[in-house]
């Protein structure tokens, strides 16, 4: 019996099993959890983390790291609001935000891949630079949205489900496909497994890494737009600490910080576990201060589980 349990928990799908059990428990024990309204609220609350986690997964899988995501999200949101206010065209605003996000990511990638600067240091630097740009552009104040159509991005619904949740779902599918079914995805995992061997096997390691960071920037741009629309303004101080939540969600989802191991389903589960924990705690009126502790404990447990699983599989 215990052997069987061990096998299930430590197997490939262990995390999914735990997630289902946790979900069932929370549904039973927490009042008002399993209602349509709460479910939609839950999904909406994980949109930002979930979107950014898609590309953070690639970053970590290639043995890289990106701390600048929170700043890029805030900066891109700022750009979207200011550019659409200035030009009067929402579309131009959105394109500008995505282009700016992609540009910052591209710079990250070039510095890391071509100049061989440690990813942690590089993105620590751009994290501050970009946050600074957002503050300068707005003079440190929130910038309101002129066109009410901009709100509609976050408010509109399709088949009763808010647009941002649809965007999240589409990105999950797209990046899951990219990871498993494209040369780019497989090369990413190979680089994380062994960068030098990948280079000698003909993988263009530098270009792949630049692409990963540029994509990360683009995706942060999308997240920034949706966030600005939800909070109805461009806030230079938005998404502070986002990078840690995103990395936590990825690690929870079984992405190895040592690189070479990542699954989209794992990351989705990781994002949802974080969301459910927070949601349940809110429903139970647990004070915010305690929530930090719970989040930390969940993360530690997840990493411990991952460690057990690795040794059970005889790796490392």
């Amino acid at each position: 019996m215990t052997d069987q349990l061990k096998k299930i928990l430590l197997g490939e799908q262990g995390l999914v099993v735990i997630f289902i059990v946790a979900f069932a428990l929370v549904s039973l024990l927490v009042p008002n959890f399993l209602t349509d309204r709460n479910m939609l609220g839950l999904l909406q609350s994980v949109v930002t983390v979930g979107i950014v986690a898609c590309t953070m997964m690639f970053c970590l899988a290639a043995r890289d790291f990106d701390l600048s995501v929170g700043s890029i999200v805030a900066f891109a949101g700022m750009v979207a609001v200011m550019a659409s206010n200035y030009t009067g065209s929402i579309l131009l605003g959105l394109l500008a935000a995505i282009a700016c996000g992609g540009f910052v990511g591209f710079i990250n990638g070039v510095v890391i891949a071509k100049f061989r600067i440690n990813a942690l240091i590089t993105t620590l630097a751009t994290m501050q630079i970009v946050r600074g740009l957002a503050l300068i552009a707005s003079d440190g104040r929130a910038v309101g949205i002129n066109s009410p159509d901009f709100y509609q991005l976050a408010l509109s619904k399709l088949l009763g489900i808010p647009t941002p949740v649809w965007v999240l779902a589409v990105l999950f599918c797209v990046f899951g496909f990219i990871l498993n079914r494209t040369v780019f995805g497989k090369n990413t995992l190979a680089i994380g497994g062994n960068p030098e061997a990948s280079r000698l096997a003909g993988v263009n390691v530098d270009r792949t890494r630049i692409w990963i960071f540029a994509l990360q920037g683009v995706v942060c741009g999308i997240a920034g737009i949706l966030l600005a629309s939800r909070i109805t303004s461009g806030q230079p101080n938005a998404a502070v600490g986002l990078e840690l939540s995103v990395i936590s969600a990825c690690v929870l989802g079984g992405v190895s910080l040592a690189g070479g191991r990542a699954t989209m389903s794992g990351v989705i589960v990781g994002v949802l576990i974080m969301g459910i924990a927070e949601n349940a705690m809110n429903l139970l009126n647990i004070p915010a201060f305690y929530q930090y502790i719970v989040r930390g404990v969940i993360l530690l447990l997840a990493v411990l589980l991952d460690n057990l699983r690795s040794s059970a599989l005889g790796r490392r």
Partner: protein
Amino acid sequence: MSFLDFSRITKAYPGVKALSGVSFGVDKGAVHGLMGENGAGKSTLIKILSGDQHADDGEIRIDGKVQAYSSTRDAFDNGVIVIHQELQLVPELTVAENLSLGRFPARAGIIAGRQMLEDVGAKLKSAGIDIDISRKVKTLSIGERQMVEIAKAIMLDARVIALDEPTSSLSSRESEILFALIDRLRGEGKVIIYVSHRLDEVFRLCDSLTVLRDGKLAAHHTSLKGVTRDQVVAEMVGREISDIWGFRPRKAGDIRLKAEGLSGAKLKTPASFEARAGEIVGFFGLIGAGRSELMRLVFGADPRFGGSVTVDGKLVHAADPHDTIRAGIVLCSEDRKHDGIIQGRSIEENINISSRRHHTSFGVLNRASEIATAETFIKKLKVRTPSRKQDIINLSGGNQQKVILGRWLSEQGVRVLIIDEPTRGIDVGAKAEIYELLYQLAEDGMAIVVVSSELPEVMGICDRILVMCGGRVSAEFSRDQFAEKAILAAALPDTKTPDAIAS
């Protein structure tokens, strides 16, 4: 009953039965050889002995007492010490500090330096080990470090000492010192387990011998009197191998690869050579002679300072593996672990990593054709694995080498295959398979460049041998000129005698 007894040791890993019911005993004051092909279960047995892994079934008894270790520390405390190929010393500490690590003589947390030096010095003197114990370990040669490892075992009053391929990186003089030390330990009544691939060492040193094959006991000799080398090889492989090389003559065609005046950061003197279609060219030399460095320049793995590479008369413009592969040059590196396998990924992905661009449309993979490619090469190269999905890290060295070969053979249009140390760490059976494969590829018109430190190997399989010494090509021999002495002499810098590297 013997002093050290292995009884029905069984251990399974996912998909592989590493050991099944292995039993044998070793007496006190004996050096016991442990031989077998890669993947035969030697390392697993040693790991179980050292407490690093647990047997699924069976037990180890020392002096009649069952040993149940939960960790290597436990094994330590019970006087069982394993000295691994990768030495476990702290380079920044002195010899004396390394030997006292974990047991520093101290008062109130302050190390009693003089007492430590005295203790260690006295212990080593009585064991006959002559090393300056105040030197930092990082300043010692590999041979000296090995001595320190053994000294560690002596310091701990070990009863059982297992040595895993101890001479693999020692010079012949250093090996002699090691053998003398082992003799002395034997005299003191220790049990020594000696794991080695080298038959001459085993025959010279060991009193008794166990041969493992496919996780089972293939033979146990309580004495080596009357046992022949051929017999032991047959026991390891499970069949007689008469001519491991199986060389067969081929006709060389036109010049395929032409490397002219290549130089780089690690190869100062420009070097040139060529290889013809259907030809197997061997590069022989000492470690550090510049062979691997030259090959890395040809492949574009390291930046070139000067020179050019042409394939079939066409200049290979860029110098990056990404481009040279497309020009038809591939390289199997000598350091498989660092430069070859992608750890944590499946055999399938390791095979397809380079060639997958051939079966994609707009960057999207064709899964069916990837799977088919992987299955084809697993079968063709006889990779021993339960599934293509197996993590490559779980394969033995020989099987990993085959997967890397599969990676390159699945590439289209390979014209030049450079293979650095093709059979390092690979057992006899797999060796013959790899040689046969090279012959077939050459017959199909590929130019093959083999870099090897094993003279018998290059002499056995190559049509032509180039010798490198001190960063330049020092001599060339065609097959009818092959002579061991002359090739060896060309590989040696003037200051060394052939004896120094004969090991």
